[in-house]
């Protein structure tokens, strides 16, 4: 990946993080709020792989934790793992699949929300799966609605890599 791609990915995630904490976190319809940051991270990780996904998740999470004066590292930890996991999926079985962004967003929305529950639980803070479960379907729906335009925009800025640039540890037949 070129340095220019890195700058583009950083700018995309920066803008998404600011939009998320300032606008989208306040949009509650049917009990769920869209997470444009998560959708953008999924798009970046799918197009640029696990290392960029993990670095992007860490960077975006730190921005969110800093902007909200929250517990530093909490969002960064969960988004780092989410970015890495989606990046690996993009490098291996998810490559060239049209449904990959939608599948990834749906799955990572669930994992992200319950990941936050687990971290809160480990920290000994108040946590309950009920509110998460109730808001899960609307949030997945919101994120899926955002997926197509966000992925198209990110794909326009970060052109898909050649096959040779992907990981070589997992070889697909055919």
């Amino acid at each position, binding site marked *: 990946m070129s340095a220019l791609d890195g700058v583009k990915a950083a700018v995309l995630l920066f803008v998404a993080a*600011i*939009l*998320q*904490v*300032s*606008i989208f*976190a*306040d949009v*509650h319809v049917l009990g769920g709020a869209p997470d444009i940051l998560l959708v953008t991270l999924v798009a970046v990780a799918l197009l640029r792989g*696990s*290392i960029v996904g*993990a*670095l992007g*998740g*860490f960077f975006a*999470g*730190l*921005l*969110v*934790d*800093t*902007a*909200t*004066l*929250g*517990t*530093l*590292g*909490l*969002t*960064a*930890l969960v988004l*780092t*793992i989410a970015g*890495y996991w989606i990046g*690996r999926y993009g490098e291996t079985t998810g490559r060239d699949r049209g449904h990959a962004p939608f599948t990834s967003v749906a799955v990572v929305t669930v994992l992200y*929300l319950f990941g*936050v*529950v687990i*971290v*809160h639980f480990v*920290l000994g*803070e*108040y*946590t309950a799966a009920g*509110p*998460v479960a109730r*808001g899960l379907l609307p949030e997945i729906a919101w994120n899926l609605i955002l997926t197509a335009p966000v992925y198209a925009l990110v794909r326009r800025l970060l052109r898909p890599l050649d096959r040779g640039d992907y*990981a070589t540890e997992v070889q697909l037949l055919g």
Partner: protein
Amino acid sequence: MVRRSVLAALVLVALALLTVSFRSPTSGALHDVQGYGATALRPFQVAAERVARPFRDVYGYFDGLSKAKSENARLRREVREWQAVASQSVANERQVAELKRLLHFEEGPTFPQDYRSVNTTVISFPNGPFAQEVTIEAGSSSGIRFGTPVVTADGLIGHVTNVSPHTATVTLLTDPTSAVTARDVTAGVNGLIRHGQGSTLILDQVPKQLPIAKNDIVVTLGTIDKHYPDLYPRGIPIGTVQSVGISDTASYLSVQVTPFARFESLDAVAALVPKNRK
């Protein structure tokens, strides 16, 4: 191998930050760095919020129109009721002031006369179901400190739990860690306001025999703490009693309170700073 090393390094750094931040959430070098970071991000958050505001206003306008007719009828009815209460209150207030003067009554700062309001906007909203916190665009440079109460035009919303020079975090009443000593001014009963289901609140610790009724008004009781002397002055409106439940097994009444403040659409808020603080 490189991938896993990068992931492991990032996870370790995140865990280290998490540990330090969790152990010392409101002070220390890391908190200062976070404060500078929040200050640097503030212009971007403000810009995004201002870009979104016209859209929010349009949505709010049409949302308000759809509810206007029924709301108008309800408000007219309430105005008639409140007019009667207000005229009685004015008479009572004069009598109380006179009695206090005669008795040389000693009391701490009271709301609103002993406080000035730092009016500001909300620049970030609760991110997820557990984060019942908002960030406001004013901080220690405006006189805001840890524990400063924050209100809207409708009533109390919470208190400041983290401060940087130009922003502050407000933990809302709907947060599970929030607890406010409160008074049902209609019945003259004290209790503790905690979070309830959704955006409702619970008036806890109210013994069963006390006469709380629906539509009673609940205000802050006014706590005096030597460390945080400005935490919740007496008399800030919190909400009205929505329902009162009683069961054989519970030690206290189950009092559900509907807050005056609309937590789901916070925009402009005011932090209450004592008048003697710059």
